[in-house]
C-alpha cells in the first residue's frame, strides 16, 4: 500500500499515498481503510440486513393475524419457522442493523470529520473490524440454510432451550447463531477502541471537552458502555457454545450448572446494550434540532452529565428482565428502584431537547421531522417502561405484547427513526447531493403514522393477555375474541403499508446518490466541522495544511450581535 509515490506538492508523508492515484475497484470499495468508505460498508450491510429483518416481521405478523394461511412470498409458516423468524428478527435488528448503522456507520463517518481529523487513529484495525462484522453477518445468514434451519430459541438464547438440540431442534443453527453474535461482539470491541482512542486523542487543536459535538460524545460513551458490559456475555457465549457442542453443563442444574447464571450474564450486557444504541440516536437528534431550530443546545453540560449518569446507572438495572424468572425477591426490590430511577436522566435529556426547541426558529425539514418524531415516540416508549420496571405490575405484563410494544416504541425510534434522521441530515455531506424533500416528507409521514398504528394496538392486546412468542393466539379461547383478532389484523396491515412505504426511501436514497441536486459544503448552515469539508470529503477529509482548528463550542446559533445566525467552530472570529 505504501509503494506508490507520495503526492506531489504536499510533502507530508503521513498522508496516505492513495490520494491522487486511480485505485482499483477492489482497493477503493472493498479493501479501503478510509473511515468514510468503511462507514458506507457498515451502512449498506446494516440496511440490507434491515430488509431481511423487516421481511421476517412481515411473515410472522401475517401468521399472527391470519393463522394458518399461506403468507404471500413465503407460504405456510410452521411453528419451528415461526420461532426462528422471531428470534432472528430480534437479533438482526439489534446486532446487525441498529449497532452497525448507528454506531459503526455514523461513528466511523462522523467522528474524524467532526473532530477535524483526517481518519481514525487505527485505519487498518477499522477495516478488520468491518471484515469480522461482515463475517458475523454471513455466519448468521448461513444458519438459515443448514439442516434444521435457523435458531429459534429467542434472541435471548436462554438455556436449556438454547443449549440442548433435543429442545431447540436446530443443532447447527443454534451454534452458528451464538458464534455469529460472538463475532459481532469482537468486531464492535475493535471498533469501539478505535472510536474512543480517536475521540480522546485526535481532536482538532483548540477543541476542548465541551466543544465536542454531542453526537460524538454519545457514540463514544456508547462504545465505552459496550466495552464494559459485553465481557461477561462473551464469557457466557463461550460457556453456551461448550454446552451446545461438547456437553459441558454450565447451565444445566441437573449436572452442576445454573440456567439463571446465563440470564444474568446475558442481561448484565443486555440492559446497557439498549443504552448503547439509544445514546447515538439521541446524539443525532441533538445535532439536528440545534441546526433546524437555529438555537444553542439548552444545557450542553446537563445532557453530557446525564448521559454519563445514564451509562453508569444502566449497569444497575439489568435484572428487571428477570423479575418472574425466580430470582431472589429482595433483589427484585433493588432492581425496581434502580430501574425507576434511570428514567429520570433520560427524561431529563428529552426535556432539554424540548427546551432547545422552545423559542427556536424552526424549519420543518425532513431531518427535523424525523428528530421530532423520535422525541415524541421515544417518550411513549420510555413512559410505558415504568409499568414494566415496577416488579409488581411486571408480574402481569411480563412476556405479554405490552413489553413488545414498549420496546418497539423505544427501539424503533432509536434504530429506524434515528437512522432516517441521521441519513437525511448528513446525506448531502456523504454523497454531495440532496435527497428529494417531497419524497422525504411523504416517506416520513407514512412511516410515523403506520408505526403508531402497528404498536398502539399491541399495547392493548398485551394488556388483555396476549403472550409473546406464541405461534397462534387463537388456540387460547380467552384471547380468541373478535376485538383482539381485529387488533392483530389492524397492526399487521399497518405493518404491510409501512414496509411498502420504505421503498419510497430506498428509491429516493439510491436515485439521489446518482442524480440528486448537487450539494455545497454547508447546505444546512451548521456549525460543526464536518460541514467545512467538501461534499463528499476527499480521502484525508481536508488538505493537511487546511485541517481546522476550533475556537468555540458546536452550538453557537443565533448569537446576539452577529449578522449570521450561526458561528462555525473553525472560524477564529
Amino acid at each position, binding site marked *: *500500500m505504501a509503494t506508490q509515490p507520495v503526492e506531489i506538492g504536499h510533502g507530508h508523508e503521513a498522508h496516505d499515498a492513495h490520494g491522487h492515484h486511480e485505485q482499483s475497484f477492489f482497493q477503493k470499495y472493498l479493501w479501503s481503510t478510509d473511515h468514510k468508505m468503511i462507514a458506507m460498508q457498515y451502512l449498506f450491510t446494516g440496511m440490507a440486513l434491515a430488509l431481511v429483518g423487516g421481511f421476517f416481521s412481515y411473515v410472522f405478523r401475517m401468521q399472527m393475524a391470519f393463522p394458518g394461511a399461506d403468507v404471500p412470498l413465503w407460504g405456510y409458516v410452521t411453528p419451528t419457522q415461526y420461532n426462528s423468524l422471531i428470534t432472528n428478527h430480534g437479533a438482526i435488528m439489534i446486532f446487525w442493523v441498529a449497532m452497525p448503522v448507528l454506531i459503526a456507520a455514523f461513528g466511523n463517518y462522523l467522528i474524524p470529520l467532526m473532530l477535524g481529523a483526517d481518519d481514525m487513529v487505527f485505519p487498518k484495525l477499522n477495516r478488520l473490524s468491518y471484515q469480522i462484522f461482515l463475517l458475523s453477518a454471513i455466519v448468521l445468514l448461513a444458519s438459515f440454510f443448514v439442516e434444521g434451519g435457523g435458531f429459534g430459541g429467542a434472541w435471548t438464547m436462554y438455556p436449556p432451550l438454547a443449549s440442548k438440540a433435543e429442545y431447540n431442534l436446530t443443532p447447527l443453527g443454534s451454534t452458528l447463531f451464538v458464534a455469529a453474535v460472538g463475532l459481532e461482539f469482537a468486531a464492535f470491541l475493535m471498533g469501539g477502541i478505535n472510536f474512543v482512542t480517536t475521540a*480522546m486523542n485526535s481532536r482538532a487543536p483548540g477543541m476542548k471537552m465541551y466543544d465536542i459535538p454531542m453526537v460524538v460524545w454519545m457514540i463514544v460513551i456508547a462504545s465505552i458502555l459496550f466495552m464494559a458490559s459485553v465481557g461477561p456475555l462473551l464469557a457466557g457465549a463461550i460457556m453456551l457454545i461448550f454446552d451446545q457442542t461438547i456437553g459441558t453443563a454450565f447451565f444445566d442444574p441437573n449436572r*452442576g450448572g445454573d440456567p439463571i447464571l446465563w440470564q444474568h450474564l446475558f442481561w448484565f450486557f443486555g440492559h446497557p446494550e439498549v443504552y448503547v444504541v439509544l445514546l447515538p440516536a439521541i446524539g443525532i437528534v441533538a445535532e439536528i434540532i440545534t441546526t433546524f431550530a437555529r438555537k444553542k443546545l439548552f444545557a450542553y453540560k446537563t445532557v453530557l452529565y446525564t448521559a454519563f449518569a445514564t451509562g453508569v446507572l444502566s449497569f444497575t438495572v439489568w435484572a428487571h428482565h428477570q423479575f418472574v424468572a425466580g430470582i431472589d425477591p429482595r433483589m427484585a426490590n433493588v432492581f425496581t428502584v434502580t430501574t425507576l430511577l434511570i428514567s429520570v436522566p433520560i427524561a431529563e435529556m428529552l426535556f432539554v431537547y424540548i427546551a432547545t426547541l422552545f423559542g427556536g426558529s424552526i424549519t420543518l425539514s425532513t431531518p427535523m421531522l424525523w428528530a421530532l418524531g423520535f422525541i415524541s415516540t421515544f417518550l411513549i416508549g420510555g413512559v410505558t417502561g415504568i409499568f414494566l420496571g415496577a416488579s409488581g405490575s411486571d408480574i402481569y405484563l411480563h412476556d405479554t405484547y405490552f413489553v413488545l410494544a414498549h420496546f418497539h416504541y423505544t427501539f424503533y425510534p432509536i434504530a429506524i427513526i434515528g437512522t432516517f434522521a441521521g441519513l437525511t441530515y448528513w446525506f448531502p455531506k456523504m454523497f454531495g447531493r440532496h435527497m428529494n424533500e417531497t419524497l422525504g416528507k411523504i416517506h416520513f409521514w407514512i412511516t410515523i403514522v403506520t408505526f403508531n398504528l402497528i404498536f398502539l394496538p399491541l399495547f392493548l392486546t398485551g394488556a388483555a393477555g396476549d403472550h409473546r412468542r406464541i405461534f397462534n393466539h387463537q388456540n387460547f379461547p380467552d384471547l380468541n375474541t373478535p376485538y383482539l383478532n381485529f387488533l392483530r389484523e389492524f397492526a399487521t396491515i399497518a405493518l404491510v403499508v409501512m414496509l411498502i412505504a420504505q421503498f419510497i426511501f430506498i428509491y429516493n436514497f439510491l436515485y439521489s446518490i446518482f442524480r440528486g441536486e448537487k450539494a455545497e459544503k454547508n447546505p444546512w448552515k451548521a456549525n460543526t466541522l464536518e460541514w467545512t469539508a467538501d461534499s463528499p470529503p476527499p480521502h484525508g477529509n481536508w488538505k493537511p495544511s487546511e485541517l481546522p482548528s476550533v475556537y468555540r463550542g458546536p452550538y453557537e446559533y443565533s448569537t446576539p450581535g452577529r449578522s449570521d445566525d450561526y458561528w462555525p467552530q473553525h472560524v477564529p472570529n
Partner: protein
Amino acid sequence: MSARPIATTRSMAGMPTGRLAVWWVIASEIVIFGGLLGSYVMHRLAHDAFAEQAAHTSTAIGAFNTFVLLTSSLFAVLGHKAAEEGDGPRAARMLYLTAGGGLIFACVKAFEWTMEISKGYTITSSTFWSFYYTAAGLHALHVIAGVIIMLIVAQTAKRNLELHRVELIGLYWHFVDVVWIFLFPLLYIAK
C-alpha cells in the same frame, strides 16, 4: 512502513494513541475474565463439593507456571526499558525471552492437561473442571496470541523501528500475567 493518519500523531488526552488503545483493550478484557471468574467464584462459594475438586489440580505445576509468567513479565519490562533507551536489539532480545516464557507456560500447560485428562478429569467431568479448562484455556489463548504479536514486534524492534510497540505488547503481557496471578489461587488452592 505504512503511512499513518495525522490523527494518530495527536495526543490531546495526554498519552500516545497506541498506549491509550492498549489500556482500553485491557479494560475490556478485565470484564471478560471478570465475568467468567466471577461465575466460577459463585459456584465455588456455594458448595463445598465443587471447591473440593480443586484439590486435584497440581499446585506445584501451577506455582511453576506462575513463576514462569512473573519472570517473563520481568523480561518484558526490561525490554521496555531498553526500547526507551533506544536500544532496539536489546529490546528484541528481551522480548524473545518473554516470548520464550510464554511458550514454556503453554508447554507446561499442555503437559499438565494431558496428565489430568489421562486421570479422567476432562472438561465434562464436573462443573469445576468445565470452568477450569475454559478459564485456563481462554487465558492460554491470550498467552499464545501475545507470544505471536511479541515476536512480530521484536522482529521490527531489532532494526530499531517502531520501538514504542515494545511497551505496548509489554503492557498487554503484564495484564495476561495479572489474570494468571488470580487464576492460580482460584483454580489451584483448595483448602
